[in-house]
């Protein structure tokens, strides 16, 4: 049976997903709070997997919490921390516990995180992980052995539409589609003309594209991301708009900008939905959706 999220993707509805990051530690109150804010407002909630290579409560644990609280989880799985045996085992566990959507990622590099001396695994890459899911669905594991009871997932991947250079990125996008990706959540996009160019390319493939919207909380943060985060470019006019907002209202301006982008993407049917990343400010995701009128 297809997941709830998969049925929504196939329904042609404009999809809204968001994400939460589990805590470092066992105090889950804030995570529960974020789940409760988001679960009825969005179609599915991603749970990050040791985001930025920072050790945290596991992604699968966050997904189970979403399930328990009546939401639809998307399990983010990176290839950084588990070899092919551990990845498959976790997929078996996720399936049996009702987690049916998986986002396959390579994972950030170990040295950018908070366990800089750890061994990066990368036994599989994101394309191979997507294929692993399809292999398991056929009733076999990666060793070619029969599974006693199989899995069924809605599998997704990521793409960076503004990567420079873009060509190798698009080539990998195609490999991910061939490997079985059904949906893509993109890295943050701000220049919608450029994104539309990417969509012209992406529309040739039978996959759903959810544009990444990262909430801009200040001009400083926007500039920092442009200078430091690969594949993110905030145009100067947006940075200026944030800088010119009256003191103390930059976040409201960021919400307005995000809302405006969602509205345009939806009204002009540029893509199939949005993935909103509020990075610690999950409380305002409903405000972005209200600003966008979705």
């Amino acid at each position: 049976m297809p997941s709830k999220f998969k049925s929504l993707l196939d329904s042609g509805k404009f999809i809204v997903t968001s994400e939460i990051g589990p805590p470092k530690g066992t105090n889950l109150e804030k995570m529960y709070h974020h789940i409760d804010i988001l679960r009825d407002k969005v179609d599915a909630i991603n749970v990050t997997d040791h985001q930025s290579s920072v050790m945290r409560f596991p992604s699968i644990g966050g997904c189970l919490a979403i399930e328990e609280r009546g939401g639809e989880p998307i399990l983010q799985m990176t290839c950084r921390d588990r070899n092919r045996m551990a990845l498959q085992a976790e997929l078996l566990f996720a399936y049996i516990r009702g987690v049916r959507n998986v986002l396959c990622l390579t994972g950030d590099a170990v040295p950018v995180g908070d366990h800089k001396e750890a061994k990066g695994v990368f036994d599989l890459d994101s394309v191979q992980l997507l294929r692993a899911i399809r292999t398991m669905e056929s009733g076999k594991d990666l060793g070619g052995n029969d599974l006693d009871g199989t899995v069924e997932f809605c599998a997704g991947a990521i793409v960076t539409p503004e990567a420079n250079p873009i060509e190798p990125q698009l080539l990998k996008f195609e490999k991910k589609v061939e490997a079985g990706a059904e949906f893509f959540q993109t890295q943050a996009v701000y220049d919608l003309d450029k994104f539309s160019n990417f969509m012209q390319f992406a529309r040739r493939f039978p996959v759903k594209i959810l544009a990444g919207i990262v909430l801009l909380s200040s001009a400083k943060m926007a500039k920092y991301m442009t200078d430091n985060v690969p594949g993110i470019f905030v145009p100067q006019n947006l940075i200026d708009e944030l800088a010119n907002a009256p003191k103390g209202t930059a976040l409201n301006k960021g919400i307005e900008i995000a809302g405006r982008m969602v509205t345009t993407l939806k009204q002009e049917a540029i893509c199939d939905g949005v993935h909103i990343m509020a990075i610690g400010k999950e409380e305002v995701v409903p405000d972005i959706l209200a600003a966008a009128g979705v």
Partner: protein
Amino acid sequence: MKSITKQKPFDELTQQLQDFSRIFIAGCGTCTTLTKTGGIEEVAAMKEQLQSQGKLVTGSVVIPVACDDITEALARENSSSIQSSQAILVMACALGVHRMSQYVINKPVIPALDTLFIGVDDGQGVFSEVCAQCGQCVLGEMADICPITACHKGLLNGPCGGTNNGKCEVDKEKDCAWTLIYNRLKEQNRLDTMRKYQPPKNYQVVPRPRVVKVM
């Protein structure tokens, strides 16, 4: 091909040598001479440093190729100063340490260096790793740039999202292997090669410890 090394921090060496007052030093005339970590000059400097700590250096030698069986002949030639020492400090790569430990079995053979990787010399004093000896060479499909070695994550199917302006997310000075591979395959009109799915690697081509018998 060179075995690339760096000297261990002197504090670490001091600790490892704390129980020994009489030391024999062996350097290498090949790789560690080129990397300036265990040639004639470095062996002499180590001797001085140990003496300034009050150690007695019973003798020293720079073996032309420390990983080779010539080490046996030189160990025999220096046998009296080796035997009057309490420990042998080897300023070769770990292969040289291993070789020495086969001939001097009654004393600790201690590495003075950390062995980093097998690399090539660009002639300008830069040594870089171009092969990780994975046992399943993919260079033919990767425009002769090894993604196992040149990509921080060893990815086989294209770049990750951390690539930025052709550089790597872990070091802005380092080229993104996949940008290099893409550009070169494009130049060779072979981009279809990059479209090909690369399956997971076999990490047990020769299970560790790796041994190959040539009859």
